[in-house]
């Protein structure tokens, strides 16, 4: 009976036309809702970016990039020390976190069923969820106190700890996606296991791993809380990582909470600088993904 439904409805042609029109309306309505929801989510993001750019663009200038902060009362001044500090602190945290993260990622992708891997994975998940301020406190206890004072190095350690989960996860996931046959191809040629991993599997997954690394950098580049008790901040230009050092998120925090109009302007400028850096990192990761894409 069901199959004949169309034929039985009296004026079938008009009926079919109506039904199709109804479906088309539903389709349009559905599409409208999706686009509307997407706009609803995107517009605030764009507004934030627009506002920061509007506020920051006036502060941004060559002087802003190369000058040191001026004392209260004097106009002008820049964030050169914070920019150098941010880059230096990140550089040291990368040197620590990238090799360790990739090595752990390789281990987890290989040892899928071992007990150690299970606990390691659990630890990584928990580490990912630890609030950044708590990491700051831990590094304060473990590094700042034993070293006898605030230092850029301790800030780097805090950021490295925060970068680790993302690097480990992206390495593990990337390597797991590489077909097992790739490894067998190398082993069957009489290539020892460690060379197979280092020379075949790692290069094959390189673009995915690097993308993870870059995204983890852009995640921690704006972290303020873990730097408060570690790198602490400094009004001077310094490249000595055993001394307190300024960084962009720290001066944003300090200047934005100050009562001076001029400092607020600097905070906006620093915010914009930070966002530009993150944007650049994201563009780089997109380029790496496209250019170094490995086709199996």
């Amino acid at each position: 009976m069901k199959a004949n439904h169309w034929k039985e409805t009296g004026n079938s042609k008009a009926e079919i036309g109506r039904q199709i029109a109804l479906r088309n309306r539903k389709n349009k309505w559905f599409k409208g809702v999706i686009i509307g929801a997407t706009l609803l989510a995107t517009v605030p993001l764009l507004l934030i970016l627009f506002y920061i750019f509007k506020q920051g663009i006036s502060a941004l200038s060559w002087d802003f990039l190369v000058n040191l902060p001026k004392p209260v009362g004097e106009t002008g001044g820049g964030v050169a020390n914070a920019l150098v500090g941010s880059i230096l602190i990140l550089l040291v945290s990368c040197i620590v976190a990238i090799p360790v993260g990739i090595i752990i990622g390789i281990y987890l992708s290989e040892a899928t069923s071992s007990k150690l891997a299970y606990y390691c994975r659990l630890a990584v998940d928990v580490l990912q969820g630890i609030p950044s301020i708590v990491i700051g406190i831990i590094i304060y206890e473990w590094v700042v106190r034993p070293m006898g004072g605030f230092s850029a190095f301790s800030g780097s350690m805090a950021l490295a700890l925060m970068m680790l989960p993302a690097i480990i996860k992206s390495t593990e996931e990337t390597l797991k996606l590489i077909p097992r046959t790739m490894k067998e191809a190398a082993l069957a040629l009489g290539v020892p296991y460690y060379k197979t991993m280092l020379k075949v599997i790692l290069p094959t997954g390189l673009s995915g791993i690097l993308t993870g690394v870059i995204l983890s950098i852009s995640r921690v580049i704006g972290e303020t809380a873990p730097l408060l008790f570690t790198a602490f901040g400094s009004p001077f230009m310094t490249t000595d990582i055993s001394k307190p050092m300024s960084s962009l998120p720290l001066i944003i925090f300090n200047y934005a909470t100050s009562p001076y109009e001029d400092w607020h302007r600097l905070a906006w400028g620093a915010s914009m600088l930070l966002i530009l850096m993150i944007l650049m990192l994201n563009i780089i990761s997109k380029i790496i993904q496209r250019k170094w894409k490995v086709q199996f």
Partner: protein
Amino acid sequence: MESPILTVRNFNAFFGENQILKNINLDIAQHQVWAIMGPSGCGKTTFIRCINRMHELIANATASGSMQLNGEEVYDMNPVVLRRKVGMVFQRPNPFPTMSIYDNVIAGYLLNNIKLSKSQKDEIVETSLQRAALWREVSSTLHKKGTFLSGGQQQRLCIARALAMNPEILLLDEATSALDPVSTAKIEELIHELKKEYTILMVTHNMQQAARVSDNTAFFYLGELVEADSTKTIFTNPKHEKTQDYIRGHFG
């Protein structure tokens, strides 16, 4: 008769408690093509993976019994050394995606840090690709990525990669099952050429293929080697009922 290149005696293979191969005995003579046949799950792939010790790479996989390559016990050898003597081509083409065609052919040397002069490399690449009947198609694009080739070309590239190491035995694990008929025909022709210099063991589901290219056929069933004889005998006058049923397509 000269002594066989591969001697298998009372050989067993397991996955955990599960016995995959049961008491296999087989002699493989030099420069012969052996087809390994049998229904799915009969252990034929496991058998050839035991020869270059790829079997043991899987967790819980073990093996016992004797397998000798030129009189040397395979399971006493260093697997890395063994695998340079026993080349393997897999079911699906698996060229290294980060390497050019040229580098793929000499991958066995590159990855093992074996130093070669430019002229040595060129020579190995050219002869290997020629033996794999791929040279004419790729000679002008040697520095492109191997993954840009068609599936059939990729598989011949993998054969060239295996041949570049000058193995004594070449194992083909259903090497043509993922390929179109034209590529399959090319690889079958190739096997015919290669047996002048190599000993070849090929796992195949395709009985016509076994009949066309192999000198001898081994029929596996439920982990046992039911019958091993010249291909002609197996196909025209099999001794065992199981073999006969399989050849006639009664099961499989």
